[in-house]
């Protein structure tokens, strides 16, 4: 009897998630049982998944065959280092979200909690299966299960018209993506008829077909990840879904798409052509810039975060593009650096974005309000949520010493040491791309200050906020868990890179571990300490030491007296909550500077208005430039087709008759 292999354990975990989900159907209306028993159980399984994946990193690749599905088409499964990195992410992040969900779901309208529990755990299990699948068939089954279960989760509150619309849009784009992925797998079989990934690896595709496969993969996985212009479902679906679901979708599901893209472009296709990287780089930059600009002008907190996710996915795509370029020119050291940045950003983003989405969930519960313009001052009523959200905000703004900065730093380093590419144009384009990445990062800071400042700081904009309460114990624990991951990812980058290096090594043949290992665990110096180094722990300790020493000295030498009075504000008399910036006011400079990027409708008050008001509505250009024309075209085509459908059976019979005749004429033996 062999000992239990990690892949078997992960399969058992997936089954256990399914079982937990099914248990939800035993008493579908028993909220207490479901939230306080089943969701924590799911979290325990998540811990298991995370630990097993962590343990299997750097180990042997394991395969398994699961005899289910169609006859003669068993599911091939495989756990290698790339799968393990993403399973690690899935496991540990889902722990935080599940624990939070244990305190979050309550009695209310919408889907029964038992059904919700089933959908949620099917979602988790299907994501794990996506990561383990080793043939196109198993992959597509898991992928579609993932899309469907998340669709049902998005439409939990299906009584609202807009939520149904958001769900429909999500499903539509998910399926456009799925078709592209299916075609991509079809191309990669090379006509051999073998749909297992091992068969695809063995194929030698011509550059044309390899490029076709890559572009299809980019479109398919890009639709799921939210790359421009297939991003429109994200800002609709995230506000519609309950917050733990948004967190799961944004934190984990988007990463499965990144996983798929990495799997196809570095593992299944073993040729790389340099312009693939340029395509990914340009689309990534466009996505990042677009996402961050729109996130700065949102007034709905979950939409703001959804656009910020688009931005982060864009940055990840930029990293993938760089990796592809370096890989194509056999500059494996730099490729490894960029790939590490990609994987690191996947880990970092999944933790901090989940954290922020869960925080919006707590705010939503406490205030019943999603619009930034009606919040404010919640740090006084919800100190736990506010302080934990601050960790997510700093990480998301890409500031040291938290996790977002590490991946950004790695990405910029790989940009910086890139000259020497054999292509003169690339040498020019790459630094300019770096400049745009920096602009995106700086704008992300703007968006995050807006998000945090307007929700948690300032005066309460509505009187109802006085009754807001802090998150419950379960919720606090889930938030604290994710904040802890964010902190650890921020201050221990070398340790983390040592772990995830196995995946880089698997995909590219080289990794960073040797270089990183030389310098000691506290220091991150991927090339050499003379060239670039970053020690987040010492960084943090210096600031903290100055802070504490400064505070102690000031109190010691002077005094610590504090008096409270009303705010000064240059002596202005009226200091109500309406005097402070609204969400729209805060983003006014961005709207003004980047005016052509937005589709805006503004209403300015005139001097004659008896009830003057100012309103601004910002919409997505892509909606009007791409989606509505396509919808209109589809409408036109269907009206043309209506002409064929007269409703008379005789006419239909004639169609069949003519078809038959034509076929007989054309298809002679």
């Amino acid at each position, binding site marked *: 009897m062999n000992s239990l292999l990690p892949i078997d354990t992960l399969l058992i975990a997936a089954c256990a998630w399914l079982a937990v989900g099914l248990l939800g159907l035993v008493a579908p209306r028993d909220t207490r049982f479901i939230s306080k028993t089943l969701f924590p159980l799911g979290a325990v399984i998540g811990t298991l998944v995370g630990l097993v994946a962590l343990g299997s990193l750097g180990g042997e690749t394991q395969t398994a065959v699961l005899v289910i599905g169609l006859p003669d088409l068993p599911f091939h499964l495989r756990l290698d280092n790339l799968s393990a990195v993403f399973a690690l992410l899935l496991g540990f992040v889902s722990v935080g979200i599940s624990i939070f969900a244990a305190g979050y779901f309550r009695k209310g309208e919408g889907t029964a909690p038992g059904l919700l529990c089933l959908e949620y755990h099917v979602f988790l299990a299907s994501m794990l299966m996506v990561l383990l699948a080793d043939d196109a068939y198993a992959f597509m089954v898991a992928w579609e299960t993932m899309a469907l279960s998340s669709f049902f989760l998005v439409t939990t509150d299906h009584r609202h018209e807009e939520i149904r619309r958001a769900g429909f849009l999500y499903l539509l784009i998910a399926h456009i993506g799925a078709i592209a992925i299916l075609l991509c797998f079809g191309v990669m079989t090379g006509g051999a008829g073998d749909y297992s990934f091992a068969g695809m690896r063995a194929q030698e595709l011509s550059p044309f077909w390899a490029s076709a496969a890559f572009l299809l993969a980019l479109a398919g996985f890009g639709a799921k990840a939210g790359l421009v212009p297939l991003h429109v479902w994200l800002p609709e679906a995230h506000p519609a879904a309950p917050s733990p679901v948004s967190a799961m979708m944004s934190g984990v599901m988007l990463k499965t798409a990144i996983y798929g893209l990495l799997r196809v472009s570095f593992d299944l296709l073993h040729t790389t052509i340099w312009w693939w990287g340029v395509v990914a780089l340009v689309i990534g930059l466009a996505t990042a810039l677009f996402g961050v600009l729109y996130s700065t002008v949102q007034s709905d907190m979950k939409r703001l975060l959804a656009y910020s996710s688009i931005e982060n996915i864009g940055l990840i795509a930029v990293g993938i593009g760089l990796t592809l370029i370096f890989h194509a020119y056999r500059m494996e050291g730099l490729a490894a650096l960029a790939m590490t940045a990609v994987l690191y950003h996947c880990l970092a983003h999944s933790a901090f974005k989940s954290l922020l989405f869960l925080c919006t969930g707590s705010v939503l519960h406490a205030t019943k309000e999603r619009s930034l313009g009606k919040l404010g*001052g919640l*740090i*006084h009523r919800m100190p736990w949520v506010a302080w934990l959200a601050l960790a997510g905000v*700093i990480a998301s*703004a890409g*500031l*040291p010493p938290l996790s977002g900065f590490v991946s950004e*730093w790695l990405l910029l380093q790989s940009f*910086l*040491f890139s000259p020497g590419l054999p292509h003169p144009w690339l*040498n020019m384009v790459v*630094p300019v791309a770096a*400049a745009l990445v920096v602009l995106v*990062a*700086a*704008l992300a*800071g*703007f968006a995050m*200050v*807006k998000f945090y*400042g*307007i929700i948690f*700081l*300032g*005066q309460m904009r509505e009187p109802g906020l006085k009754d807001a309460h802090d998150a419950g114990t379960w919720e606090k624990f889930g938030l604290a868990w994710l904040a802890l991951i964010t902190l650890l990812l921020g201050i221990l980058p070398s340790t983390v890179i040592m772990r995830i290096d196995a995946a880089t090594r698997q995909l590219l043949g080289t990794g960073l571990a040797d270089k990183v290992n030389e310098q000691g665990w506290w220091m991150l110096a991927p090339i050499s*300490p*003379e*060239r*670039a*180094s*970053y*020690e987040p722990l*010492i*960084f943090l300790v*210096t*600031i*903290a030491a*100055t*802070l504490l020493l400064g*505070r102690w000295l*000031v109190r010691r030498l002077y005094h610590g*007296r*504090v*008096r*409270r*009075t*009303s*705010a*000064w*504000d*240059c002596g*202005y008399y009226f200091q109500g909550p309406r005097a*402070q*910036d609204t969400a729209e*006011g*805060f983003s006014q*400079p*961005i709207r*003004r*500077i980047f005016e052509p990027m937005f589709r805006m409708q503004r209403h300015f008050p005139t001097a004659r208005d008896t009830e003057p008001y100012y309103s601004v509505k910002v919409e997505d250009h892509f909606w009007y430039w791409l989606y509505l024309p396509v919808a209109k075209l589809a409408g036109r085509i269907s009206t043309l087709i209506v002409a064929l459908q007269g409703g008379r059976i005789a006419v239909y019979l004639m169609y069949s008759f003519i078809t038959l005749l034509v076929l007989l004429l054309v298809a002679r033996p």
Partner: protein
Amino acid sequence: MISISGLLGQAFAILLALVLAPLLSGWVGQCRAWLQSRTAPPLLLPYYQLQKLFHKDVVLAHGASSLFRAAPFVVFGCMVLACAIIPSLSTDLPLAPAADALALVGVFGLARVFISLAAMDVGTSFGTLGGRREMLVGFLAEPALLMVIFTLAMIAQSTSVATIVETLAHRELVIYPSLAFAGIAFTFVSFAENARVPVDNPATHLELTMIHEAMILEYSGRHLALIEWAASLKLYAYSCLGLALFFPWGIAPGDNFLALVAAIPLLLFKLAIGGAFLAAIETINAKMRIFRAPEFLGTAFMLAVLGLLVRLLLESKV
């Protein structure tokens, strides 16, 4: 490895920054007054102000949260770290590997985010206005600053500030045209980042023009003292960074004690010239409208990118 002299040099550099920073602010104020034919305030005025503020009680608004009280200390800590990393006297700094040039920009970013959040905390009209303007200037200045650093990093093949300075200070005299572009861009950025005249007016309480002052209106007592001190530390850090990057001569290499002693008067001299230059620029310029700031910083960004491209296209053989 970390040497005793390195540690001492590090401690001395931090102490020197803490002491010299208010003096630099005082010097700039004095120069400005002279150039504007006013009676100059005493050189030590910033110290008197700090002393006075530390003695005073803190008067907090009712709506102020704990973040508001923590922010001055965080900002101060960030600035001390920045001053510790930037080689002002010697490049032998044990703290230097903690943050390279990119992380240094991150330190300034962290301080900016905290002070903007603190500005929004009390919930007054000027606070939020200042916070949003500060973030506006920040997101425009940060890319330009990083482009400058990119250019230098490509010359030195390193993003570590100490290595950049060593490379530039101890090479044969080669004129890099890219450095000129980078230098001008850096000057533009430092004006914006330090709330100086073309972008902001440090001596104003006129509502519509202020950025930095608007953010700290609600601060008083020791909090205000720390913020003022941090602001002068920031000016000092930027000045030292500019001097180290573009005029790196005289900065002691490694643990050479004599060179370290010789570096002090040279630093004072360079700072004095730099401060006078700053005051002169402030005097001959008028404060811009806030919406001209993007043009100003856009120019800085373009210059920095130009420097980078010049470096890449023309100097790659050098």
